[in-house]
C-alpha cells in the first residue's frame, strides 16, 4: 500500500509499505477514505517529539470502511462505514470504564518512554510517535485499528464523509476543551487558536451554554471563519493587546473560561515568545508557553483554564503564582472522544454543528507532502488538507 512516512524533521515521503494485518483478536483493518492533517502533526514534523523513527506512518484523524475484523470484534463487519477516535482506549481498564479513554492503561505497547517522562505510561495514539505506542498512522491506504469495538464508530446515515472525518479528532477535542472548561450559562469564553480544534471549541462552547466567545489568532482567514462560521468575536493578537482587549470586553473581570487550543508551538509578539523560541531552538526546553501564560493571566479570578493544545515536555516561566492567587482551575488532557462521538453525531444530524467547512483542501495521498507544506506554512488559506488514498 502507499503511505506518507516521516523521514526526519521536516522531511516527509510517500512510499510503498506493506499492508497491515490483523494481529490481535480485537483488531480491525480499515480502508482509509479520508485522512486529515492536524496541527499536532506539526510538532512531529518539526522534530519536537523525540521518539519518531524514519519510516513511521503519520496521520491520526480519519474515516473509512472496515475491510477485515479480528475474531473477537463484535460490533462491526466488513463494509461498515466508520470513523476512528485517534486516542486509543481498551474499554476495560479502570480509566476506560470511567470514560477517561485518553488515560487508558492498556493501549500503549511502549510504556517506557512516557513512564520516565510523565511518571506513568500514557495511552496509545494512532500515528503519533513511539512514546504514544508507535502505531502506524492513517495517511495510508489501510490502517490497523486496535480494540475496534471501543475505538470505531459507525457513521449514521445523513452524515457526510466531510463531516464524519473530523469527528475522529478535531470535533471531540474542541468539545472536550469546552466540556473541561466547565462552562456555565452566560459565561464569556476566550479561545486561543482558530485552527480546526479551536473553531470546534468555539462551536462547542456555544452548545454548552456560553453567552459569548472571543477567538484569538493572527491569521485573517481563520479569524474570519471564527466570526462567520462559529459566531465568535475575533481578536488578532498581532494588532491587538489581547490582555487589555479581554478585560475591556468583560468589564475588567477577564473571561470566565479560557481555552488553549494552540499548545507547544505558540506564536506571539511579546518578549516571552522570543525567549521561548530561542530556548526551543537550542533544545533547552520543548514548549513555547505564550498562550498558556496569556490565558492564565487573562482568566477571571476563580475561572477555569482548559488546555487541549499539545504540550509534550517541559515549560519554562509557568505562572503558578497566578493560578494559586487567583484560585484558577487548570484542566487538560488528550481528548477521550469515545465519550462524545454519539452526542456529536446528534448535533451534526440536528444541524447544530457542521465541521465540514474545516476541509479546505481535498487531495490525493500522493500530494500529501505538498499538503503538509501548505498546512505548515498556512498558505492558500489552508485550514485542513484531507488526503483521499486512491
Amino acid at each position, binding site marked *: 500500500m502507499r503511505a506518507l512516512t516521516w523521514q526526519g524533521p521536516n522531511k516527509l515521503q510517500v512510499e510503498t509499505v506493506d499492508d497491515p494485518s490483523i494481529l490481535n*483478536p480485537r483488531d480491525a483493518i480499515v480502508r482509509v477514505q479520508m485522512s486529515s492533517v492536524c496541527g499536532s502533526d506539526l510538532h512531529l514534523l518539526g522534530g519536537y517529539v523525540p521518539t519518531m523513527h524514519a519510516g513511521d506512518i503519520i496521520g491520526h484523524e480519519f474515516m473509512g470502511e472496515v475491510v477485515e475484523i479480528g475474531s473477537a470484534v463484535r460490533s462491526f463487519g466488513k463494509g461498515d462505514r466508520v470513523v476512528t477516535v485517534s486516542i486509543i482506549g481498551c474499554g476495560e*481498564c*479502570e480509566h476506560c470504564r470511567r470514560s477517561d479513554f485518553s488515560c487508558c*492503561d492498556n493501549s500503549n505497547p511502549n510504556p517506557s518512554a512516557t513512564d520516565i517522562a510523565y511518571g506513568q505510561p500514557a495511552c496509545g495514539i494512532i500515528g503519533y510517535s513511539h512514546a504514544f505506542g508507535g*502505531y502506524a498512522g492513517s495517511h495510508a491506504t489501510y490502517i490497523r485499528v486496535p480494540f475496534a469495538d471501543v475505538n470505531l464508530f459507525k457513521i449514521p446515515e445523513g452524515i457526510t464523509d466531510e463531516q464524519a472525518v473530523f469527528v475522529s479528532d478535531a470535533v471531540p477535542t474542541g468539545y472536550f476543551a469546552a466540556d473541561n472548561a466547565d462552562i456555565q450559562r452566560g459565561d464569556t469564553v476566550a479561545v486561543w487558536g482558530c485552527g480546526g480544534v479551536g473553531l470546534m471549541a468555539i462551536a462547542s462552547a456555544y452548545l454548552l451554554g456560553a453567552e459569548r466567545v472571543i477567538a484569538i489568532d493572527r491569521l485573517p482567514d481563520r479569524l474570519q471563519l471564527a466570526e462567520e462560521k462559529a459566531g465568535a468575536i475575533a481578536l488578532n493578537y498581532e494588532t491587538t493587546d489581547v490582555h487589555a482587549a479581554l478585560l475591556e470586553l468583560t468589564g475588567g473581570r477577564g473571561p470566565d473560561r479560557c481555552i488553549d487550543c494552540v499548545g507547544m508551538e505558540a506564536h506571539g509578539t511579546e518578549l516571552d515568545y522570543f525567549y521561548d523560541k530561542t530556548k526551543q531552538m537550542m533544545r533547552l526546553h520543548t514548549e513555547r508557553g505564550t498562550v498558556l501564560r496569556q490565558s492564565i493571566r487573562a482568566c477571571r479570578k476563580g475561572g477555569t483554564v482548559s488546555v487541549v493544545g499539545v504540550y509534550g515536555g517541559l515549560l519554562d516561566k509557568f505562572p503558578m503564582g497566578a493560578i494559586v492567587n487567583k484560585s484558577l482551575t487548570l484542566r487538560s488532557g488528550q481528548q477521550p472522544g469515545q465519550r462524545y462521538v454519539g452526542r456529536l453525531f446528534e448535533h451534526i444530524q440536528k444541524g447544530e454543528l457542521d465541521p465540514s467547512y474545516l476541509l479546505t483542501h481535498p487531495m490525493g495521498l500522493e500530494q500529501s507532502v505538498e499538503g503538509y507544506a501548505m498546512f505548515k506554512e498556512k498558505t492558500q488559506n489552508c485550514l485542513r488538507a484531507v488526503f483521499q488514498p486512491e
Partner: protein
Amino acid sequence: MSERPQLVASRAAVPTPSHPNLGTPERAVSLLAGTLLIANGLRQGGLQGWPQVLLGACAAWRGYSGTCRIKRALTHSPFERAFEQDRDWSGSKIISRSITVGKPRDEVFAFCRNPGNLGALVPWVDAIEQTGEGTYRWVAHGPMDKTLHCDIQQDEPKDGRKLHWTAGPDTRFKHDIQMHFSDAPAGRGTQLKVIVACQAPLGAAGYALAAAISKFSDKALLHLLRSIKQQLETGEVSTNRLHASGTKDFLFVHPATEPPQTSAPTPSSGGNA
C-alpha cells in the same frame, strides 16, 4: 493507623556537612590526596597540571565536607541490607514495580502462578520446560543466536497472596523473585507488587555493575507487568507491529511469538509450564 510498610524505594539520606557519610579516615585520605594533587598540579601547570588541580579540589572538598554522592549511590538501601541479612547474601541489588490489575485477586494469582502464562508475555523467552517438581528451565533466544537458559525453583504458593521463585542451586548469580498480591481499595482489582533481587558479589564494583544492569531489568519488569495487566483486562497484549513477523524489544530483534489465546487463561491447578 496502618503499619508503615518497608519500602524498596527507601534510600540512604543525601549527605550534608552536618550529616556526613564519610568516616574520619576517608576524609583524611581525601584531604591528603586532594592537597597533594593540587600541589602537583600547580607545580606542573599547563594542560597536565590544571586537571589535577581540579580533581584535587574535588577530593579536598570531599574530605573537608565529609560528603560523597558516589558513596551514597553505592550504599545499599535499607531494604537491601535487611534482605541481605535475611538471606545471608554478601550483596544484592533489588528492584520493584507495582501495578493494579482490574481483576479479582484469585484470577490474577492463578494466571501468574502458571509460568507458561508469564513466559508467553516475555518476547525473548522461547520456551519454559518443567524439569522437576516446581522447577523450570526458562530458555531464551539471546543475542547472536545464542540460547540462554536459567533454572528457576517455584515455591509452593501461599494463600493466594505471594508467589516466590529462586534461581536453581547451580546458577552462578542468585536471584530471588517475589510477587505479592493484595486487594486494591474500592474494588479496583488486585495490586501486584514484584520484588526482584539479584546477588551482587565483589563489593562496590559488583553493586555498581548490578545497578547498571538493573536499569534494563526494571524496563523488562515494567513491560511484563503491563503485559500481564493487558492480557488479563483486555484479553490481548497491545502491539504496534504491522505484521506478525519479527518484533523489536530494547535488547535485540526476536522472532514473533504467539500471545496466550484466551482472555484469562486461569488454570485452577496452575503451576504447569
